[in-house]
């Protein structure tokens, strides 16, 4: 059977599965639509959270990010997992005890302020919308690459499927589809990884394979360090940037992870406070399956790439691959434009090395090399081309396509639910039309979700130039505004409305300023005040890593302003005391 046919069958089967779940899990009430009636088992919720969390970027791009950054990419691995410790210890159990539907709702009630709720809604909308655009783009990419349909057709199909099960099923439908999507994506990710690890190191577990030895008996990581250094690159396992930036980036991603509303609301769906605690642990178990495999995929695919191009001693003419002899997968990915070769010195062979390293230039000249000839190696191919590089059967390639689509769809659905609940529950019912009936609120939720899908689809088809920069924005906003406001709302009964609002605005303010200085005002090209290079960064802190500083500003401002103004009213202090104790989570749920 042809690869094309197989891919259609595998992807089609997964879609049929998502549709069946959607029809089975229709939402009939706002409780079902927003929080799946708070009846999801903690392990099931953990799995759904893992799918919710692991986006197209985690599935497709992260291993490549690790492959090209080595040790420095640890910030992403630790940041995107360590945030769950903060979530489980500092937020999830208390917000579950609070027992309502949305994150801005808690902020609005705890800080007895519609303004605070509005600020929270705005942060949520900006962070979630920018994020969901990336998912729609991811669906389009996966479709166009594996099913050879148009990019835009891919986006439309993705929009239609998400529309179907999110709008009908709400949180309930999304939860059970996400569980199915987790199974698809994790299988698709680990199968090629296991095969590659077996081929290179003989270890079936990629996690131990990365610490194993390759054919000549040396350790894989030592060998990788060596071949990279021989080609003028930095050693894989050593720090390339600065410690302070890696530490702050890690912290910013952790705070942002814990503060992202689409993840937090998943913990509103479990029955009890104790379930919220353990469910975060289960979520991290399922996430770690992918996140501990990714470093092995990254290192091993880098190793494979270099060994394909550099077949022997660096500097010997015979040791560089003749372009005409390149393997089939090289052909395939060249046609997609993700891999590009340019024969700069006209010798018909491929030289891949670091031509930006002045110390290596003299050596390169002696070899007769005139620049790095793999002019483009898109980091996404580290995952996408893996099955072909490892010469795995076609069904594995089909599976990777289905996995990438599952990762994008599951994250998109979670984000869309966060967006629609913010619009229908926080804006409409909370601020503009408090007397709206439940039936109309449910309808409004569905309409706003459909609207969000259209907006996301539009931007997926016409990606704004800043698509690549949104990570900094989404995590910076969540870390500098939502996380501190939520944490202080639980751990201090002294922080009041003025303090919280001043803190959030100050946190967002400094973070946005710092990001805009280096990335351009509203990401408009040409409006950068300073070039985004390490030499210009304050204390060597990159814009992506600044969220932690913004969070600190938020904490300091909120505590200072609160202490200078009156304490919150007794009812709010009683609320804080109430959410700290698990007992009575049932009664608090009355809505």
């Amino acid at each position, binding site marked *: 059977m042809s690869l094309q046919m197989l891919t259609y069958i595998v992807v089609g089967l997964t879609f049929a599965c998502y549709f069946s779940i959607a029809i089975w899990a229709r939402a009939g009430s706002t409780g079902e639509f927003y929080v799946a*009636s*708070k*009846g999801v088992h903690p392990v099931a919720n953990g799995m759904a959270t893992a799918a919710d969390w692991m986006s197209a970027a985690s599935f497709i791009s992260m291993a490549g990010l*690790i492959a090209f950054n080595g*040790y420095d990419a*640890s910030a992403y*691995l*630790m940041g995107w*997992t*360590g945030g*769950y*410790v903060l979530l*489980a*210890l*500092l937020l999830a*159990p208390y917000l579950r005890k609070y*027992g309502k539907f949305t994150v801005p709702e808690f902020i609005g009630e705890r800080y007895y302020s519609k303004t605070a709720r509005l600020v929270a809604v705005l942060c949520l909308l900006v962070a979630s919308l920018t994020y969901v655009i990336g998912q729609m783009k991811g669906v389009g990419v996966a479709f166009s690459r594996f099913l050879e349909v148009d990019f835009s057709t891919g986006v439309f199909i993705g929009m239609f499927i998400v529309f179907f099960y999110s709008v009908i099923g709400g949180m309930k439908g999304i939860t059970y589809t996400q569980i199915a999507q987790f199974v698809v994506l994790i299988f698709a990710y680990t199968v090629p990884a296991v095969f590659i690890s077996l081929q290179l190191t003989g270890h079936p577990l990629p*996690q*131990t394979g*990365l*610490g*194993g*030895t390759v054919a000549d008996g040396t*350790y*894989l*990581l*030592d060998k990788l360090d060596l071949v990279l250094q021989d080609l003028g690159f930095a050693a894989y*396992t*050593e*720090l390339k940037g600065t*410690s302070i930036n*890696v*530490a702050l980036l*890690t*912290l910013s991603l*952790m705070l942002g992870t814990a503060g992202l509303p689409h993840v937090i609301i998943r913990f509103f769906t479990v*029955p*009890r*406070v*104790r*379930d919220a*605690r*353990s469910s*975060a*642990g289960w979520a*991290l*178990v399922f996430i*770690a399956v992918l*996140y*501990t495999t990714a*470093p092995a995929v990254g290192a091993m695919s880098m190793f494979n790439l270099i060994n394909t191009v550099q077949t022997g001693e660096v500097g010997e003419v015979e040791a560089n691959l003749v372009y005409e002899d390149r393997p089939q997968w090289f052909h395939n990915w060249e046609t997609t434009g993700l891999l590009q070769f340019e024969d700069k010195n006209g010798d018909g062979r491929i030289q891949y090395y670091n031509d930006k390293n002045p110390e290596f230039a003299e050596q390169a000249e002696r070899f007769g090399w005139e620049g790095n000839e793999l002019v483009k190696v898109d980091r996404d191919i580290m995952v996408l081309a893996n099955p072909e590089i490892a010469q795995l059967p076609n069904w594995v390639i089909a599976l990777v396509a289905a996995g990438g689509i599952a990762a994008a769809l599951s994250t998109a659905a979670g984000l869309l639910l966060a967006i629609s609940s913010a619009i229908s529950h926080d804006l409409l019912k909370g601020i503009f039309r408090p007397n709206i009936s439940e039936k109309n609120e449910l309808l409004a939720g569905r309409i706003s979700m459909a609207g969000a899908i259209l907006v996301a689809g539009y931007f997926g088809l016409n990606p704004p130039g800043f698509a690549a920069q949104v990570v900094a924005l989404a995590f910076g906003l969540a870390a500098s505004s939502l996380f501190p406001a939520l944490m202080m709302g639980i751990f201090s009964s002294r922080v009041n409305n003025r303090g919280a609002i001043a803190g959030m605005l100050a946190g967002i303010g400094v973070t946005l300023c710092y990001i805009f200085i280096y990335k351009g005002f509203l990401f408009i090209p040409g409006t950068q005040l300073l070039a985004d290079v390490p030499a210009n960064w304050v204390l060597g802190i990159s814009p992506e890593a600044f969220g932690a500083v913004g969070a600190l500003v938020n904490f300091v401002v909120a505590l200072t302003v609160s202490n200078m103004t009156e304490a919150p009213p007794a009812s709010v202090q009683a609320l804080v*005391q109430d959410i*700290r*104790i*698990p*007992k009575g*989570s*049932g009664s*608090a*749920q009355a809505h």
Partner: protein
Amino acid sequence: MPDVSPAAAYWRANLRVLAQCLLVWVIVSFLLSVILVDVLNTLRLGGYPLGFWFAQQGSLYTFIVLIFYYAWRMNRLDRQFHFEEDDEGSN
């Protein structure tokens, strides 16, 4: 402290467990994986330099253990202070 309410004592006990867990969280992710990474890299765990292993593997495993440990300790505290929820949950 006889005049401390059960709720306040429960909260204080919770903060103590929290502080322990967050201390481990800081040590593993920031101290071992970033600040001391060069020193630890002189030691090895199989083919892994130890600091690199903590940054890309060990810290993740520690996070999982931390969350389940905290959940277990808190469930015990809930029972000890009689703040646990009814078994049938909130529905």
